[in-house]
């Protein structure tokens, strides 16, 4: 490719017809060029159709969130509301408790992602770089969590948390701290698995040099190894943020609201509740506002960091 030199100014630009190849292959390539143009058109057509199929429903939800109820019923399909009804959002935020659920989710997420990353990397680091009896056993124990379905553990997990709450109320059902610890525990398998392979690839020479300079094991980890593993940390961090933000089964199981206590549930539960309630309240616009609020922040963050999110998540899967 780079061996072909173009005289300056004559470089083929995308969108213009390509320069003619050697005459002996002219006929073949002209036919190909035609086929190529047709195929290019077909590709765009199909890709645009799929893009519309992805965007149109999302846009419809966001736009319906700005309509008032009578408009949702009268003009369900229109993408342009008469007027921007911000009150749907205030209603969903306040009466639907989504505001509180939102803050709960954030609170839990900050704690759980931080702890998952810290504890996950610590365990992965030790397992990847230190020889000791039981190393393999602990590694495979973490790994086994990748295949087991969460539903199997549901009943005993619920009971364990319930019993724990009798002794230590802070770790009982419907408590933020409990949910943080459960998220961390359930995220460890993949985090350890992923970071393990990452720490294995780091060079020994730097570790040795640091040890010669008198660094302790934990200092070596925190000031040298952890910074060197940054690309891996970002990937798995994105993976955990999205995964824990999107959790619904664990909170549904463990964060049931208790009468007389503050509502500690997370946003996914709030949405399910809203979608169930709306059945008899028929507050459609409020529901659309709720979905929009649960959807937009993540989408905006994704659009800003799309490169990192895409490469982070695909690395998470293909490693």
């Amino acid at each position, binding site marked *: 490719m780079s061996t072909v030199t173009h005289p300056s100014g004559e470089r083929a630009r995308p969108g213009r017809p390509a320069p003619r190849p050697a005459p002996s292959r002219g006929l073949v390539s002209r036919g*190909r060029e035609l086929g190529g143009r047709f195929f290019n058109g077909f590709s765009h057509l199909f890709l645009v159709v799929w893009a519309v199929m992805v965007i149109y429903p999302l846009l419809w939800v966001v736009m319906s969130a700005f309509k008032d109820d009578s408009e949702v019923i009268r003009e369900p399909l229109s993408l342009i509301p008469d007027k921007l009804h911000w009150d749907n959002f205030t209603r969903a935020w306040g009466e639907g408790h989504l505001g509180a659920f939102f803050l709960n989710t954030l609170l839990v997420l900050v704690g759980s992602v931080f702890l998952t990353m810290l504890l996950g990397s610590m365990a992965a680091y030790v397992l990847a770089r230190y020889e000791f009896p039981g190393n393999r056993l602990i590694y495979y124990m973490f790994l086994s969590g990748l295949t*087991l379905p969460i539903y199997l553990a549901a009943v005993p997990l619920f009971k364990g948390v319930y019993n724990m709450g009798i002794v230590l109320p802070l770790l009982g059902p419907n408590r933020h701290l409990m949910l943080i610890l459960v998220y961390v525990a359930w995220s460890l398998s993949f985090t350890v698995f992923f970071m393990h392979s990452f720490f294995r690839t780091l060079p020994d020479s730097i570790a040795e040099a640091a040890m010669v300079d008198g660094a302790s094991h934990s200092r070596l980890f925190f000031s040298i190894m952890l910074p060197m593993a940054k690309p891996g940390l970002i990937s798995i961090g994105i993976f955990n943020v999205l995964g824990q933000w999107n959790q619904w089964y664990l909170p549904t199981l463990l964060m049931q609201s208790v009468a007389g206590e503050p509502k500690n549930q997370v946003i996914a539960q709030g949405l399910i509740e809203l979608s169930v309630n709306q059945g008899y309240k028929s507050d459609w616009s409020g529901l659309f506002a709720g979905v929009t609020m649960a959807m937009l922040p993540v989408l905006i963050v994704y659009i800003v960091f799309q490169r990192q999110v895409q490469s982070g998540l695909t690395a998470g899967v293909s490693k």
Partner: protein
Amino acid sequence: MRHGVARFVTGFLALPVALYLFYVVWPFAQAAGYSLTNWGGYSDKQEFVGLDNYVRLFSDELIRKAFWHNVFFLVTVPLFTIALALFLAFLLNVGGREDRAGIRGVFGSGLYKVIFFFPQVLSLVVIAVMWQQIYRSDNQGLINGLLMKIGLVDADNPIGFTADPEPFLGVPAVLWWLLFIAVWSGAGFYMVLFSAAMQSIPKDIYEAALLDGAGRFDTFFRITLPLLRDTISVAWVYLGFIALDMYALVFVMTPSQGGPNHASEIFASVLNFTAFQKGQFGYACAMGVALAIFTILLAALQLRITRRERIEY
């Protein structure tokens, strides 16, 4: 020095291992134990019944139904998602114009990748609630509304979507509609995954093929696809797990979480109903163990089938 290492290793492992043991390993182990009892969950009454629960599983109509629904998703979710993702990736990377430098990707492929990826960052609950509205069976639903407008659907006889138990190709219609959502939400992610894999194939392989006179179809089917084998098999395994986890869609979208008339029941929904509505914890745990064994066998099988010699490049 050795003493220091031991202390360091223990210190670093203590907390993660303790959390993992308490919240993951211990519940799994207990589930296996409870599955041998007739524990109801809310009382202390608990008798050892041996393998009775497992025997009961085999004669349970509902479980049999749920099992086949799981199998349906297990086959269709990976199949349709991967086929569509590969097709989109093919268009994206091979669909552009052709010039002396070879075949280009289509113009704007970066933008397409950003858009197609949208559903991946949304939670299953958001997607489920959103599609609940899209699938509504009156003119307020996006699909029924649009189709009524152009006269393809009769206003008195709208499409039932997730409330439709009538079989289509031998499978309840509601399952096909749930499948559609799963494919809709997954295709973009796997397209990005396949695109990344395609781009890591060295350019000189394509140049050699171009010199030999290979067109874009030949190149794709004879070079790109075989070299993507590893990535596709990884995707297959992951989609297999996702297919087993269709519970969020069933939970939010179907009437009485597994309805109508048990037409969308899957393992997880039967398990939850048995445990938390009917209060048969012991039996529910047996279902869980059966599901776990099924999952592990499947994972092993998939890895075995898809394993092949790696192509190094």
